[in-house]
């Protein structure tokens, strides 16, 4: 029975690779674009340093729209955009486009929340010593929020792993797609169970690493 589960081992390795590519790129997008977007969301909020009602409304609406899409529909709806960006709407790389869009919107919210935890006085102290905008962000805000930022990224990564499982619809592959095609559709329950175990292990590793790093970074 056990050997049954492992009989598509080669395809399994390939699927794990695809999951890593999809999740890896979307985590990259979350950090590179979600972090600045979340910081902007924070600054533009009512009562914050660069309060800006219009910009705040636009950004919030955009982020909420992306997050309210049923993910599968977003993937389909984004096909023209994907084609524009990577030249094709099919395959693992193409699948990273909608995933990254969700990643950016998702993580930006968590960044905003992590920054809101910082006491007001920290910003005040920074400004009183003549910090520039970048000085304030990098020497004060990100330093004080760093454990929250890491925990947020951990939660996000786990969501991206979950989102990546439906990427079969655009030929994205990944462990989730493997579980459906080799396990579910071929009635090979052992294969499906094996794929789910792989997912569970992945999520556990991500959560454990994230929590550990966040704890080590927290000196409060």
């Amino acid at each position: 029975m056990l050997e049954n589960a492992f009989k598509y081992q080669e395809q399994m390795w390939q699927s794990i690779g695809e999951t890593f590519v999809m999740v890896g790129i979307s985590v990259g997008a979350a950090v590179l674009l979600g972090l600045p977007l979340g910081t902007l969301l924070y600054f533009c909020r009512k009562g914050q340093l660069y309060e800006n009602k219009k910009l705040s409304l636009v950004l919030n609406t955009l982020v909420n729209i992306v997050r309210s899409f049923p993910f599968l529909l977003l993937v389909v709806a984004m096909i023209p955009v994907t084609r524009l960006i990577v030249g094709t709407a099919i395959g693992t790389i193409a699948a990273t486009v909608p995933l990254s869009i969700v990643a950016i919107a998702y993580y930006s919210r968590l960044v905003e929340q992590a920054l809101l935890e910082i006491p007001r006085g920290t910003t005040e102290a920074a400004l009183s010593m003549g910090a520039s905008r970048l000085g304030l962000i990098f020497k004060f805000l990100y330093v004080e929020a760093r454990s929250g930022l890491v925990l947020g990224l951990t939660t996000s990564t786990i969501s991206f792993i979950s989102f990546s499982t439906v990427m079969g619809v655009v030929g994205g592959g990944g462990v989730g797609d493997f579980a459906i095609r080799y396990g579910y559709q071929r009635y090979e329950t052992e294969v499906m169970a094996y794929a789910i175990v792989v997912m569970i292990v992945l999520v556990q590793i991500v959560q454990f690493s994230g929590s550990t790093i966040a704890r080590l970074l927290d000196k409060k």
Partner: protein
Amino acid sequence: MLSLSRISKSFEVKDGVYQAVDSVTLEVEKGSIHGIIGASGAGKSTLLRLINLLERPDEGSVILNGREMTVLPEKLLRQERQKIGMIFQQFNLVANVSVSRNVSIPLELAGVPKRERTERVEECLRFVGLADKAGQYPAQLSGGQRQRVAIARALANHPGLLLCDEPTSSLDPATTTEILGVLKHINEKLGVTIVIVTHEMDVVKRLCSHVSVMEDGRIVDTFSRADGEFLPAASSSGSYREQILGKAREDYA
């Protein structure tokens, strides 16, 4: 060295406009320790924040060392702020970095090279008596020690002026004495002018050379110790004004 002239600040609140500071004119002499005392809500913390323009005044001017602060462009204002130290009731240290890094941050912001920074950080920590805590984190320190780190941080860029916002209000009496001692030492030894906001009469009597009483956004009186208008003594009761004046009259009688 510092003069505020007819400076006002109001805030929009739910049911209208709240006039936090109402046309205040104030002169702070070089080398003095100028107290601003008043009940909570009197506008004294706002007044302090108008000095380094953490709050923008609605009208009036702030002149520091002959320079009009309110018209400075952003970049010059930041450079001016680097020469004004500020400490707070809640210390406002960066909790995730060590004591020495906390003191180093203002130097980094001012673009001081690394070797000079290391020396200056040591010097400042020695000055406040915390040289042995350099590697610790704020959470490992007592309240008084944290405030001393904040003082070291405020001194890092050799400020001519130190703004103190209720620096002892969350400290116990013994620690208050310790912090007041450090502030006095800074004033006498380094010649730093100090503006201190407080609601504790005792702080004024023990530390200040001048005191202004604030009520409802206005400065209602200013006294100078040199002129014998107020004397160091334990305070009793009554309004801040009565405490200062009443005590003075008793001593004259």
